């Protein structure tokens, strides 16, 4: 979240932006407001993209409504722990040799291809009648 090369003023700026975003996404429901950007892909094609529902899912998570978050975008909820572990491994990979090994396993080619296929499958399946969370 805070890259080490930033100056202090930029760091403060980044923190303030994060706080503003968290407050906005906690307080306001994207369902009831027009000020949240709509997905261009959905607007143009009528089909949901991989990221559709992310803003509503974040709103639900910030309000501890976990089932709603799963309903809006299950992939986002699944990937939050993955992203957190991944960023932690990237931070620590230069410091410890065991962390480097875990890092390399975490980012190996097969895993990345699996993620790619998962995203593409989710994109297709969530637009079919087989997807129950509609």
């Amino acid at each position, binding site marked *: 979240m805070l890259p080490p090369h930033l100056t202090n003023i930029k760091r403060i700026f980044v923190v303030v932006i994060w706080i503003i975003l968290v407050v906005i996404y906690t307080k306001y429901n994207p369902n009831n407001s027009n000020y949240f950007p709509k997905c261009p892909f959905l607007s143009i094609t009528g089909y949901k993209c991989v*990221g559709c529902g992310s803003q509503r899912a974040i709103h639900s998570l910030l309000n501890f409504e976990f089932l709603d978050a799963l309903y809006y975008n299950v992939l*986002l909820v699944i990937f939050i722990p993955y992203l957190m572990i*991944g960023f932690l491994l990237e931070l620590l990979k230069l410091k410890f040799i065991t962390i480097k090994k875990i890092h390399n396993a975490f980012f190996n080619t097969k895993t*990345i291809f699996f993620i790619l296929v998962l*995203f593409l499958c989710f994109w297709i399946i969530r637009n079919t009648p087989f997807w129950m969370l509609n």
Partner: protein
Amino acid sequence: MENQNLPMPKTWLLESILVTLFCCLPLGIVGIINAANVSSKYESGDLEGAKKASQEAAKWTKYGFFAGLIVVILYLVFIFVFGASAIAAAASDQY
């Protein structure tokens, strides 16, 4: 396999996933493919190639981030210029 002792260059996988979910789907997918490229070159011992792939991955992920940011800014400008009611009318047509 002597290169395995050196750390893997940054794959930009995590940033690409975030871009796919929040900003710009097509460029995020390109970012994930580039991340796979970094990883596969590193695993085959081609560290130079992996570094180049890493720069390529960084480029596409940043393009995706800024494309998403521009769309959001344009959307907000549009909303404040034309008013929220026009958007509400357009959105209600969708459903």
